[in-house]
């Protein structure tokens, strides 16, 4: 074996205490990195699976594909798999059913296997053959005589949805109900939604279907799919696009983005966040482990000096540290794979227990060989990085200095006097503080590590506290206690809205819909007050200026007729004959203010007046595909937004119209925004303590009309509970990770203290030889321990205070509010723990020193 390797191995064996402390530090650091990657991969996996669960496992969708071109799509080299949905039919139900039709969408086996509808199955199974259907839950609710397994004699016609469109020709057929789906369709369609089965080969050549594609190379989807569309002869729309759609959310999780949308997505930000977290952790751990390698290198500096003096080159000396790093990291890194997984399993299981009710699903721990390999490589890189510094330092030392141990000795340039300590603790107090000062370099890592642990754990805790206070403040400002969002992608059933409006026990109710739009104005349209506050030019980022015209963002709000008229009456205006709107003409005077009251101060926004005609456009941003323009006449200009639960963002101009007008306007918007714009929001103000009961009743009503994915309810109590759970769960993860930092910190402290005391055996023996008794030694070490343990607290506390103050400042939270909510007891517990651990280490070490034979310790034991 190479002599340098052999020497390094011997050193590892001989210096067990240092070796073990390095191995522990590497083990925990690697466990941390492994856990971080397991967390990231589990989170990624959860997101991908969730996206597939709710949106299906497809990359791109081609619409209006003629059935005779399906073969061309399937045979395309870029296509991995193809699923087909379409050939929609209407089945006319036998007499006696509440609604007369089943609106059937047929899907092939690939579609059923990969898409999300199978997840909505409440009972039974999915269709596996032609003639089998699964029907929506409202079919069974309204027709209790029917059940799964029943066969219906129906007349099948082409795709019609209302009696107005009823087809002439109906072919007799029988359908077997094989399952119940949690889906719904608006009652305006006069039918029940159902899904059937089809063989694409059996489709008539002229029928058009929707094709879902999984691509061989997902990364090329945005270029390959338009080429496929072109190859099969699909026509472009008026905007020059092929009728295709992409599963952008799923693609983004796989790192595939539409051109220009990379930075707009959250995934790169999350990835960068992970990189930052991993990089920072690696740097911090490398710093901590570097201290351990530094101690080890200094312990054997005399021997390294000997090696140098007999001809070992600087590279060979450096290699002794690197070899040591390699030898000491192999076992901990391998072991950390197991520990990292077990740690992740424990933490994520506990996290899932806390959050499963909030998210509606549990996070599965996902551990892949790739993640393990990456964790191992990162850990090894971290160890090499940590060892690099001491290796370089050792290779530069002059041989004679190393042989004499000059690098090893503590040098004090000037002895300082400490009158306060001397007065209260005597001469020994002065010695203690001088010793701590002299060993500053040695203890540096300990202090930084313990300060970092404090900063990390309590900094996060402060962030959560501030965010919690901020959320609670926002919640308190929310006039409504129960919020319902109805999102069917089409006009909401009037009967459902009527039932919700008739809810018993509520004190106030608002129903509205909203759509983004914009108005182009000139500088002269600004009010004098707004101009004084900065005007359009101060609203950079919100208001776009082009050729002297300004695009002002607007929100078109649809209100129920009676509520709309009530607002109009309060404004003292009469309705105009045509399309008429109420303009909420106010804008924040100080949008940059941190103080809530200052932020709420408003001034008149624009010079709009009653009777004026305003031209609005659907194209509220350059990315908006549609460009439908419409006009409204101003019926009234009011100074503040009616209390409906909508809080428009800065510089957004609310334009309120009656609900019917709203629907007729957005009916002309491009399809892209239809799903969003048809959303209805219902808000209730309820007596204290009643919100969850009302929410439950709202859930029941919505559930009777809609599929569970078509509506969402929340209440103040539920939100508060969920916030508490989320904060607790996230803090649990943060504290678990911070605890790993803490363990590394404590192990490095232990190693540094034991090493320092070992080096100073001679010094303590000398004290004893001149008459310092056991009590004196204990007192001396006790004071050293106290001074050492106080420093990380004295460093960490001001830093933590700065972090907390910055967070409070940014969020506009007062110190009193913060202190009331921040768990000061946890901080105190941490401080006590640090004091206890360091002092306990000193007390244990002092016993060994007291047991030393004075003459043996004083004797020079150089070999």
């Amino acid at each position, binding site marked *: 074996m190479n002599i340098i390797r*052999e*020497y390094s191995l011997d050193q590892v064996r001989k210096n067990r205490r240092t070796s073990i402390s390095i191995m522990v530090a590497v083990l925990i650091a690697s466990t941390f990195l492994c856990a971080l990657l397991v967390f990231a991969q589990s989170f990624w996996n959860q997101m991908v699976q969730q996206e597939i669960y709710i949106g299906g496992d497809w990359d791109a969708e081609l619409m209006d594909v003629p059935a005779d071109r399906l073969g061309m799509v399937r045979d395309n080299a870029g296509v991995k798999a193809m699923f087909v949905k379409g050939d929609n039919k209407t089945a006319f139900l036998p007499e006696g059913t509440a609604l007369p039709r089943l609106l059937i969408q047929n899907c092939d086996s690939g579609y059923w296997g990969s898409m999300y509808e199978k997840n909505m199955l409440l009972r039974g199974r999915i269709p596996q053959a032609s003639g089998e259907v699964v029907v929506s839950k409202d079919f069974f609710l309204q027709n209790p005589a029917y059940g799964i397994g029943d066969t219906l004699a129906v007349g099948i016609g082409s795709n019609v949805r209302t009696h107005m469109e009823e087809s002439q020709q109906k072919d007799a057929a029988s359908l077997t109900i094989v399952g119940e789906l949690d889906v719904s369709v608006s009652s305006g369609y006069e039918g029940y939604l159902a899904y059937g089965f089809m063989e694409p080969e059996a489709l008539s050549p002229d029928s058009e279907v929707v094709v879902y594609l999984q691509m061989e190379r997902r990364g090329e989807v945005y270029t390959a799919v338009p080429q496929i569309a072109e190859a099969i002869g699909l026509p472009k729309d008026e905007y020059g696009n092929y009728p295709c759609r992409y599963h952008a959310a799923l693609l983004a999780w796989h790192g595939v983005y539409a051109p220009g949308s990379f930075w707009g997505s959250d995934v790169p930000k999350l990835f960068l966040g992970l990189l930052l977290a991993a990089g920072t952790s690696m740097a911090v751990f490398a710093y901590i482990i570097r201290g351990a390698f530094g101690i080890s290198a200094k312990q054997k500096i005399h021997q390294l000096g000997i090696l140098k003096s*007999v*001809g070992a*080159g600087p590279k060979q000396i450096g290699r002794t540290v690197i070899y040591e790093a390699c030898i000491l990291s192999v076992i901990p890194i391998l072991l950390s794979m197991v520990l990292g997984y077990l740690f992740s399993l424990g933490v994520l299981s506990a996290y899932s227990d806390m959050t499963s009710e909030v998210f509606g699903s549990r996070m599965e721990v996902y551990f892949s060989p790739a993640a393990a390999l990456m964790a191992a490589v990162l850990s090894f890189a971290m160890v090499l990085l940590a060892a690099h510094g001491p290796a370089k330092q050792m290779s530069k030392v002059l041989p004679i200095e190393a*042989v004499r141990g000059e690098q090893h000795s503590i040098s004090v340039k000037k002895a300082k006097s400490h009158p306060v300590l001397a007065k209260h603790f005597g001469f020994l107090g002065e010695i203690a503080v001088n010793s701590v000062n002299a060993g500053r370099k040695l203890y540096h890592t300990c202090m930084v590590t313990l300060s970092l642990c404090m900063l990390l754990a309590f900094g996060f805790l402060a962030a959560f506290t501030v965010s919690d206070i901020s959320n609670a403040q926002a919640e308190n400002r929310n006039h409504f206690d129960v919020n319902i969002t109805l999102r069917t992608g089409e006009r909401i059933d009037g009967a459902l809205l009527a039932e919700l409006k008739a809810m018993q026990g509520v004190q106030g109710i608002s129903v509205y819909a909203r759509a983004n739009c914009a108005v182009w104005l000139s500088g002269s349209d600004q009010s004098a007050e707004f101009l004084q506050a900065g005007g359009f030019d101060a609203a950079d980022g919100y208001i776009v200026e082009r050729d002297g015209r300004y695009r002002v963002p607007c929100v078109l709000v649809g209100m129920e007729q009676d509520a709309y008229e009530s607002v109009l009456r309060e404004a003292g205006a009469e309705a105009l004959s045509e399309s008429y709107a109420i303009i909420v003409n106010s804008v924040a005077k100080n949008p940059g203010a941190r103080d809530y009251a200052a932020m709420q101060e408003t001034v008149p926004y624009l010079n709009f007046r009653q009777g004026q005609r305003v031209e609005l456009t659907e194209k509220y941003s350059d990315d908006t595909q549609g460009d439908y323009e419409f006009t409204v006449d101003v019926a009234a200009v009011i100074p503040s937004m009616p209390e409906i639960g909508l809080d428009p963002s800065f510089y957004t101009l609310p334009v309120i119209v009656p609900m019917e007008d709203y629907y007729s306007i957005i009916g002309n918007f491009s399809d892209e925004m239809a799903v969003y714009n048809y959303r209805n929001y219902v808000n209730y103000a309820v007596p204290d303590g009643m919100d969850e009961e009302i929410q439950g009743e709202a859930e029941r009503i919505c559930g009777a009309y809609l599929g569970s994915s078509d509506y969402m309810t929340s209440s103040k109590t539920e939100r508060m509970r969920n916030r508490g759970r989320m904060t607790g769960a996230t803090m649990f993860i943060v504290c678990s990770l911070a605890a790993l930092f803490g363990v590394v910190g404590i192990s490095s402290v232990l190693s540094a203290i034991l090493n320092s005391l070992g080096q100073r055996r001679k010094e303590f023996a000398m004290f004893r030889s001149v008459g310092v008794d056991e009590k004196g030694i204990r007192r001396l070490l006790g004071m050293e321990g106290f001074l050492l343990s106080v420093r990380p607290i004295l460093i960490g506390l001001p830093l933590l205070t700065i972090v907390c103050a910055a967070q409070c400042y940014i969020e506009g939270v007062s110190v009193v509010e913060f202190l009331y909510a921040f768990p000061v007891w946890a901080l105190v517990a941490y401080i006590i723990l640090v004091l206890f651990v360091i002092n306990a280490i000193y007390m244990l070490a002092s016993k060994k020193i007291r047991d030393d034979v004075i003459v043996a310790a004083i004797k020079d034991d150089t070999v």
Partner: protein
Amino acid sequence: MDILRTEGLTRQYGTGQTMVTALDHVDLQVERGQFVAIIGASGSGKSTLLHLLGGVDRPDGGKIFVEDVDIATFGEERLAQYRRRKVGLIYQFYNLIPTLSVKKNICLPMLLDNKEPGKERFDDIVRTLGLEDRLEHLPGQLSGGQQQRAAIGRALIYQPAILLADEPTGNLDRKNTEEIISLLKLSNRQYKQTILLVTHDENVALEADRIIKIEDGKIISDKAVRP
């Protein structure tokens, strides 16, 4: 013919008011095969001179010619090679690696070069040093005299042209001192090595061919004891 020559060799420690000049413009020539003793009081600069000649310390000024090559200009790697192959250093406190066997300690300079010593030469040195039955022991298992012999073995293994001994007997009793000096003289005669020996002991110094006395970093006398 000079094997070793210094010109204006200077070494200072510390800075400002605390600066100490350990060697002050020392000029010295040593012929090949000479046995030179360097004497002087503690802190006179004799060990510093030896360390500079051995390449384990760096001068602040002046030149050190070894076989007409100035080692003061060497980079770290070349200087390490010089220490391995050209000089052998013996210290008062032996400075053996405690975790390596005696055999490996002796062979260390060659092992660092990834070489093994010839068996005949190794056996010859070990026999001369009387360490045949101690080769697999660790340094801590040997007496002081035996440890110093192992250190001499290490200095001799590469057959360096120059042997530098820094108070090699300072930690030994009379019997071991005599044995070590005999070994050095034997090495000087048998292997034609140039030896520079730093010592406090005048009796030891008298065993050399030439005695140089240093005081306050300067050579104050340089006498030939025997031709």
